[in-house]
């Protein structure tokens, strides 16, 4: 049986209710319609020119996304006034088939 190739997707990291927040979901493409575990990792860019891991979230969900079928990761912003820094997320699934992963583009957010 040929290995199937699912897709992952995620929204750009954004500030919501005083936190940096990102969501991840998946599409089955040519894979069976089943649940899988979506994990999203949040990263912030530091002055040493590297991405630092900040937080993660996972959910066992059906394909397609939406509020009932996404994983969310959040990081509470520091004390105002906020500095601006780059943020991005990595969305990953290990199954079905080949699994999949994707980074969202870096976004400069005021979430010091």
């Amino acid at each position, binding site marked *: 049986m040929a290995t199937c190739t699912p897709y992952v997707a*995620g*929204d*750009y990291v954004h500030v919501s209710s005083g936190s940096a927040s990102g969501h991840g979901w998946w*599409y089955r493409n040519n894979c069976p319609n089943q649940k899988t575990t979506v994990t999203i990792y949040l990263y912030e860019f530091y002055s040493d020119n590297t991405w630092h891991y900040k937080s993660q979230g996972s959910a066992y969900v059906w394909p397609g*996304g939406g509020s009932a079928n996404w994983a*969310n990761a959040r990081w509470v912003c520091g004390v105002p006034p906020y500095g601006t820094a780059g943020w991005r997320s990595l969305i990953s699934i290990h199954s079905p088939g080949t699994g999949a992963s*994707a980074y969202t583009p870096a976004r400069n957010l005021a979430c010091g």
Partner: protein
Amino acid sequence: MEMMLAMKPTNASPATVVSLGAWGDVSEGSSGGTSCNVREFALLSDGREITLLDDRGWTSSAPLGEVSLAHVVRNVYNAVLPDDAEETGEEHEWQRFEQRLREAGVAVSQHDLRAMPYRIAFSVPGGWQAG
């Protein structure tokens, strides 16, 4: 006795919201996938367009040449969902929309905004489509 009425300039017909929508700018992602910047807006009766939310977007591992129209539209809807949509069931940031429109001089209730038609349009490299 003759009375003088105070006069001041006023709008002949204040603008109203006629529809809501999202504009997506689809492009090839940096690692072979697809990305899309998303901007939500309100279209007014006087032709103006008011930006309601412009800090959202999405990325998919699906290559641009393989991503389906349904996939693009679904991702736009997912990207504009409020963070607390699990609890509220809301599909858009109605409170923020109402505030942005009030700041632009347009009085409209969240109830009325929910009843507005909502359209998604997007550009793709080499052309554009509406969904």
